[in-house]
């Protein structure tokens, strides 16, 4: 029984890690513009993130080393520095988006402009990382985040033509009025939203911090697969509701209120309440994760003391990075920059950093000196290599596509 509970909690945490403002915005936006024509990208992304998270968790459990620690060891200080600067910037941009996301959830609930909520969200985040027992928080947000399943239930409530939906998923076409480059641009946006880099390094840090070892490799695998698959179902649910409600009416997603509109159509006020709770929990959880991840990237590169369980005075450099990042991100969010655009750019730029982060994971997971019996099997390697090629192609194509489509317009 206790085992089941532990697994359930791990899965919840994984779902929470998967779902963030990037998913909430891009799934709805893409559903409204492209219908179900990019569902296949979600499937592709879930397999990739599961494979690399599993490898990363296994490596962390066996060697007690985190991603950026290994990145530096394998790629040397120059490439690794380039990598952490890139990852840190993307992560900080994601933090800006997540802060705005929680504030937007408050705006939906209160009709008070989100800008007024941004400082409050930042203060809340500070209090949690400074004082709270993190594990309890993480689980609390995981449980509350389940409210987002209202998106999946809404698909049934809206009574769709299932045959047509199945056809649209299996025969993806670029909708009239959209160019192929734009379609590919949003395919990369989707890939970035669902293979968010911070998920992987947050996860590997968690494994080391909780002191999980070889014995936990099986449990880590279960958490991962279930968590990401359920997260993927949720993502497809959001795309489907947007396809059913927004696309026929020609509604574009420019605000979080459009993301939740289909749920309100299906369930009215109750739906709205549930979805706001779900968004708050999932996105606030992501605020904490991106915030800690910013500290992890830097501390792991330089070998500083770090950890969400450490008292701030015992890890002063790590805590300083976190505080400065939080202040900077909150300040940036307050410049009235469009939070939806920030979200799109953050997930898109994330694609650029994936190859350099994933390559060392794949290399170490194959190193028998480190991994012993837990070295990569054939399946993990086959999937690993295919995805490394895929994310490399995506990273190379990302900037030309961004310019060619003028940011997806």
């Amino acid at each position, binding site marked *: 029984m206790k085992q089941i509970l532990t697994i359930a909690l791990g899965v919840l945490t994984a779902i929470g890690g998967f779902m963030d403002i990037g998913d909430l915005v891009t799934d709805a936006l893409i559903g409204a513009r492209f219908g179900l024509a990019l569902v296949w990208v979600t499937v592709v992304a879930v397999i990739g993130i599961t494979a690399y998270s599993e490898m990363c968790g296994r490596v962390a459990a066996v*060697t*007690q*080393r985190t991603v950026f*620690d290994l990145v*530096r*060891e394998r790629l*040397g*200080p*120059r490439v*690794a*520095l380039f990598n952490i600067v890139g990852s840190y910037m993307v992560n900080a941009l994601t933090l800006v988006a997540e802060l705005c996301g929680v504030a937007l959830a408050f705006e939906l609930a209160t009709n008070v402009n989100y800008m007024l909520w941004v400082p409050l969200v930042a203060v809340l985040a500070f209090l949690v990382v*400074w*004082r709270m027992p993190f594990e309890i928080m993480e689980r609390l947000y995981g449980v509350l985040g389940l409210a987002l399943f209202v998106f999946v239930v809404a698909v049934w409530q809206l009574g769709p033509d299932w045959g047509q939906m199945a056809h649209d998923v299996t025969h993806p076409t670029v909708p009239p009025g959209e160019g192929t480059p734009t379609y590919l641009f949003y395919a990369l946006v989707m890939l970035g939203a669902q293979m968010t880099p911070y998920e992987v390094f947050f996860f590997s840090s968690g494994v080391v911090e909780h002191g999980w070892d070889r014995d936990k490799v099986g449990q880590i695998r279960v958490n991962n697969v279930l968590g990401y698959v359920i997260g993927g179902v949720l993502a497809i649910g959001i795309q489907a509701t947007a396809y059913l409600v927004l696309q026929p009416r020609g509604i574009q997603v420019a605000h979080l209120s459009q993301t939740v509109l289909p749920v309100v159509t299906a369930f009215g006020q109750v739906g709205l309440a549930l979805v706001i709770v779900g968004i708050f929990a999932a996105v606030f959880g992501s605020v904490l994760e991106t915030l800690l991840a910013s500290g992890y990237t830097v501390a792991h*590169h*330089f*070998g*500083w*003391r*770090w950890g969400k369980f450490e*008292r*701030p*005075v*015992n*890890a*002063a*450099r790590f*805590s*300083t990075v976190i*505080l400065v990042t939080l202040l900077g991100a909150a300040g940036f969010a307050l410049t009235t920059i469009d939070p939806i655009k920030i979200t799109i750019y953050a997930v898109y730029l994330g694609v650029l950093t994936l190859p350099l982060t994933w390559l060392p994971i794949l290399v170490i997971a194959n190193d028998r000196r*480190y991994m012993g019996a837990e070295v990569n099997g054939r399946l993990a390697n086959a999937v690993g290599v295919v995805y490394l090629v895929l994310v490399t192609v995506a990273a190379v194509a990302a900037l030309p596509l961004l310019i060619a489509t003028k940011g997806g317009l």
Partner: protein
Amino acid sequence: MTDVLHAGLDLLDRQIVDRDGELVGKVDDLELTDPEDGPPRLVALLTGAQAYGTRLGGRLGGWIVSAAGRLGGTKQPVRIPFELVEKVGPSIRLSAAVSELERVERVDHWLRDNFIGRIPGAGNAPE
């Protein structure tokens, strides 16, 4: 591990931990002597911003070294004598405690005393 240590693969950029498992820093560089009557000998692990900047090289590396030199009062890197190394593995374990090593935690303590420690709720500084 084999008997032969490969400086680039087995030492550089590895995590250094003290005898209690506390994180000390990275092996940012190595100090070798070149005696006339024999092969070069490894005498110390170098860590910290000065060593990191030197290793990084280029304009950025030079800038890091001079900034660290100005703030820390010396451009000399922090040395950890190789005699203190107890075990070389995925991380490098020392036989000393981090508090016994000179200069290693200077930045950390400065931030603790002047910034982090002054914010309420940061926890009491260990005496």
